[in-house]
């Protein structure tokens, strides 16, 4: 069971990484980051079945951080949209050296 769960987690994580690398819509990239976080959560839970509950506790930390990150991230995206009328990241490149 552990192997299957870890495999599933790896697949989810890869989907998330590929999404972040290939997509240009900020919201989709944001969702892919969430997917990666949850893939990690999944492996934490899977390990917790074998090595005790501390993995599950860690999942709650990840969820809390993810919730905070979602609040800040979405706020930034909304502010961005209001300002630029787009959430396409290829068009948002003012901050550069």
């Amino acid at each position, binding site marked *: *069971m552990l192997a299957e769960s870890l495999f599933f987690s790896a697949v989810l994580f890869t989907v998330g990484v590929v999404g972040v*690398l290939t997509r240009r819509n900020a919201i989709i990239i944001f969702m892919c980051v969430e997917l990666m976080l949850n893939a990690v959560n999944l492996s934490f839970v899977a390990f917790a079945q074998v090595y005790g*509950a501390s993995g599950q506790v860690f999942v709650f930390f990840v969820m809390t951080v993810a919730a905070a990150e979602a609040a800040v991230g979405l706020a930034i995206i909304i502010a961005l949209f209001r300002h630029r009328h787009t959430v396409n990241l290829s068009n948002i*490149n003012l901050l*550069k050296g």
Partner: protein
Amino acid sequence: MMLLPHEAMLAASQLAAPAAHPLDGTVAGYVWLLPLLPLLGFLANGLLSVTSAAHFGPADPGAGHGPAHPSSPAPHAPSDHGAAGDDHHAVARHRHASLVSLIGPGVLVVAFGLALAIFFAMQGAGEMKAPFIQRYFSWMPVGDLNIDVAFQLDQLSMLMVLIITGVGMLILLFSVGYMRDDPGYPRYFAYLNLFVFFMLVLVLGSSYPLMFIGWEGVGLCSYLLIGFWFSEKANADAGKKAFIVNRIGDFGFLVAMFMMFANFGALDFTGVAAGASQLGLGSVLVTAICLFLFLGCAGKSAQIPLYVWLPDAMAGPTPVSALIHAATMVTAGVYLIARSNILFSLAPVACLVVVLIGALTAIFAASIGLKQWDIKKVLAYSTVSQLGYMFMGVGSGAYAAGMFHLMTHAFFKALLFLGSGSVIYAMHAAYHHTGSHDDAQDMRNMGGMRKYMPITWGLMWIATLAISGIPPFAGFFSKDEILGAVHARHAGSTLDGASLLGVPGGAIMMFCYVLGLAAAFMTAVYMTRMMLYTFHGPNRTGDRERDHLHEAPWIMTGPLVVLGALSAVGGWFNLPSFFPAGRVGALEHWLDPVVGDGALRFTNGAPVEVPASTEYLLVGIAIAIAVAGIALAFVRLKPATLVPKTDAPAEHGFERVLANKYFVDEIYDATIVEPVVATSRGLLWRGIDVGLIDGFTRLLIQSKDDDSAPGSSVQMGGLLTRAVGLVGSTLQSGRVGTYAWVLVVGMLFVLGAFTFR
């Protein structure tokens, strides 16, 4: 489930073989099908919604490519939307719509049939003391915590399942007519199916966490459906308001669950009841748990102080108001208290709070209902008020009475909402015909609808008499039973023995009884007012529009007729002893195995004995008050003098306070919302962000232009910043994609270095 080690799977399968139960081997074993059916309906309709988005017009009208939604929260005529004139889209849309109309209500018809079959199996099984629990798999095995996904079938959950699937089926059938021309038709049914799924999980779950899943799920669907026409900002805001206000209540529910687990070591209903029974009457722990649970109820079931979301929730389609915001979801709090009856029976102080809040809500909301002009707002405040009655019932330990009112209310309030939906449908169609933009929900624009919609008129009068408490309609029996129970327990009960903030419990119960009577009087007044202004007197819709007013199609009036019949005879489910026109107390007897022990504890183990003379007096008072309310409305209100909304004068004095809902929204805004916004803006943004962080950065940048003191530490800092910046700025291309690639390559490099070192 995937993650379970084999031991836990084995343990779960051992648990799945319970002791012999009268329902073993009957159709009750298929209880899992009940929630599964609407879930499948959700998946099918959701899929149709996604695939048909092209035919039904854009799913996101805010995206700006396609025709805009008409803004009125009422059905749209076909010419308003869609890729107009395109035959291919029209045909595909029609085919999709037929499939959706088949699946959406269809799954509920099947589920209701199954629920009936299980109900008859339960009746055939004879006396059923223990609940029928089906375990499916272990959900959260962590340390001492072990939560199964298990469904619990007993008399209480069966009653709720019948209400949800039965009333839900009728409302979904009505929706087929009401929402037919809406561009979001498949999405609408997908959400409603999902709602029924979560609602069934809520009432069938055998533990608090599983119930909480349903609790949150229905909240989500409520949010989605309130904001169904989300392109209008007010509707989207109403959805957000409902969601956020409910979070406050959910906080209470969660804390209560934490306390249960910490002290009883269990979260399933049986385990918690067993743990609570070890505690003494009125212990601090159980009182705290009950109060936190009630905070959850106040959120979900719209009680003071968290009721403010429900009137705004009327922004959703009217059948949604009927199903979610009147008949089922908002009664979840009443169900929760009835389900936790063992806990509440041990906490008289918490019960006094429940009764008091219920009574205050009942009269407060009823008084607001007296001066509302929007027909749905009248019904919304009426719902809040009636929910207050239900809490008076379950709070005073009369669980059967509370659940009885929940059931009759589901009948007549669903009928009232669907009837008002029928009226709004007619009004909207008439305004649409002439291109008018008047308010289709304002009663000042209605009047005399009786002539155009006689069926709706007759059925709504049945519901009005039922909610006002006129015998022999359903509401009379249930409301009378609650008021009788509150009155009976003002002496000789555990509630009488307790006290709240120094006020003796007996006095509070008597006070609540009087409030309940006053609210019953107001109920009769505002309901009659609504009927008079909507259906009687001259018509104020407009001369051109008048010709287009007509009765809704049969797919809409059919469910109304069924609900009308139930509102008329619903009282027969639980007849009082003074009116033995059938089996007396059938529902009370049915619920006895679940709530009987808890209810008896309120009266110290003795059944409630009320002298016949007192009972006749109470019933007489109740009927007199209802009749007086209706009579007062007929005498005082003159629909003939009413003018359309646009010409109406402003209200003055106390009328203005009532019309503005006691300014509660404004008070909440000033005391809670504004300070939070001001803190964010003034302190966090202008103070910390702009003042502190930006100020510090500005200090660093300024130092490079400071040529007055060469070689000083400040200037060295500036040079260093510039040197680092030169390297950094070449890497900083401004393209986020490049950063992500660099990050991933770097991560792979580090991982590789660890793996192959």
